[in-house]
């Protein structure tokens, strides 16, 4: 199984889970997230005091942000 996995990784280095990204890929991922954050008209990241979650909001529609302590 281990050999199979090595072969598979060499052959098809597809990454979809962020836990498997290397430092460069993770940097690109975070840059993309930051650009999403700056574009609240299309999608909004809901940020509260204890987590960052993602909310899809319709363009032009405000949503209320409540904090939970």
């Amino acid at each position, binding site marked *: *199984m*281990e050999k*199979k*996995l*090595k*072969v*598979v*990784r060499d052959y*098809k280095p*597809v*990454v*979809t*889970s*962020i*836990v*498997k990204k290397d*430092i460069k890929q*993770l*940097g690109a*991922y*975070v840059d*993309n*997230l*930051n650009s*999403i*954050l700056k574009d609240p008209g299309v*999608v909004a*990241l*809901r*940020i*509260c*005091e*204890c*987590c*960052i*979650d*993602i*909310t*899809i909001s319709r363009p032009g529609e405000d949503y*209320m942000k*409540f*904090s*939970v*302590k």
Partner: protein
Amino acid sequence: MLTSSRYNIFIPLFDSCQGASFLLFNTLSGSIDLVDDVIHDTLLSLNSEDKVLCKEFGNNNDKNLADEVIDYLDRRGYLFMNEDEEMEHFDLLYKTFLTFHRQNYPQSVVVIPTYHCNLQCKYCWQRLHNMDSGVITDEVINRLFSSLPEIIENMDEKKIELVVFGGEPLMDYQDLTKKVTSILKKSKEHGFATKIITNGTGLADFIDDNYQLIDLIQVTIDGPPEIHNRRRPLPGADSFDLILKGLDRALKCKKFINLRVNVDFENLPSLPILANILEEHGWLGNGLLDVHLAPTKNHGKNETPGNQGNILQSVLKLRDENELMKIYNLDGFSGYKYIEGFKETGLLPLHRFFHCEAQTNFWAFDLRGDVYACWDAAGIPDLSVGKFSPEVMMDKEKLSIWRDHSSLESEKCKKCKIAPNCGGGCLFMAIEKSNDFLSNYCDPLLADYHQAITTNLDWFKEHAELGDHAVGLVVSDRVISEINLEYGLLDR
């Protein structure tokens, strides 16, 4: 040696779904997939202490797991080449996302103009620590605003939310009202968003003259009158009645209200009655009032840790039985909130390797000129992390205890399945219970996850079968529904 992630969690499906019999959830990668018995057994056996058994399983599964399945389990974060590889990724994610959170969080600036309070709530940690005081002076208020740029790392006024907290900030006590008004006015002059956390008993008298200075008000109410007044007594008066008057006035001023209900087994059965009272006042559905449940914390050295997982179970049961319970937002139960967020977006919250904002960017400033990194610690001078008045003098070592606290600190925590999400638990509770910063006070996040996932099993199965969301479906010989969206539903 090939290893399965130490953060894999299996939850039985009870009824199989196209051959899958377990929901596999990984708290580090945030992946959720439905898998069959063979995958379940294989992943478990890889980490077995019994190496012979492990090897045998490995051999068997070389035959049984298709290449595409191994590939899929690998890139979803359920498999690693070895334990070190997983921990390297853990460390990288931790550093990356801690920085990300610190840069993107709203910046809380909490001001405590007094520790005095007119209520005598039995579960209040400030009461347990005998906190009381006079009122903040003009000099300290001025010093507070001038010192902020020296203390706050990310001084972006658009991100700053100034929160007036206490004690109780809205009381007829010395010249407190004047001072609170002054703090709010100065906040607005600086361009900060403003919030008041109040017990609500003085809200009606305060709001008419000051509503333009406040963006959000948080009030706590614990049930219908007889329950609320017993839990949050105001000597010589009816605190419930005063709070309702305050809510009414604030809502007429079009203020957003965050209504907090501290919930435990004592008041839970009465919450449909409270919901009914709020509904009868016509306050629900107006877009101004959000009512959320927050599990009551068991403060005090002799109190045992809470059973929040059980209370969530009871809350959900009552919600099934009583439609009125649906007015309550359950965001106070983190695990439940994250699974609900997953259902909307296909992603779990981005890795929060911390318990709360004490580990990121929280600051509290009190009337004595002390600075704190934690809500609950404020008022206990030994736990302050510096001073802003008369001069700024920060203690980096003490601040580091809060900011650098993480689940990476102890081997015990690192091995815990919830380590990527809990941040080592509540530091204040750890100190309160054991007087030891490293003793770890575990929160019930894992129990919440279990409860939330179990409650939503049908939803997960339905969407895995449809292949239209972020839940995969994989059996030993093939991947039935593949997840390949990097940003969950945002990719669409």
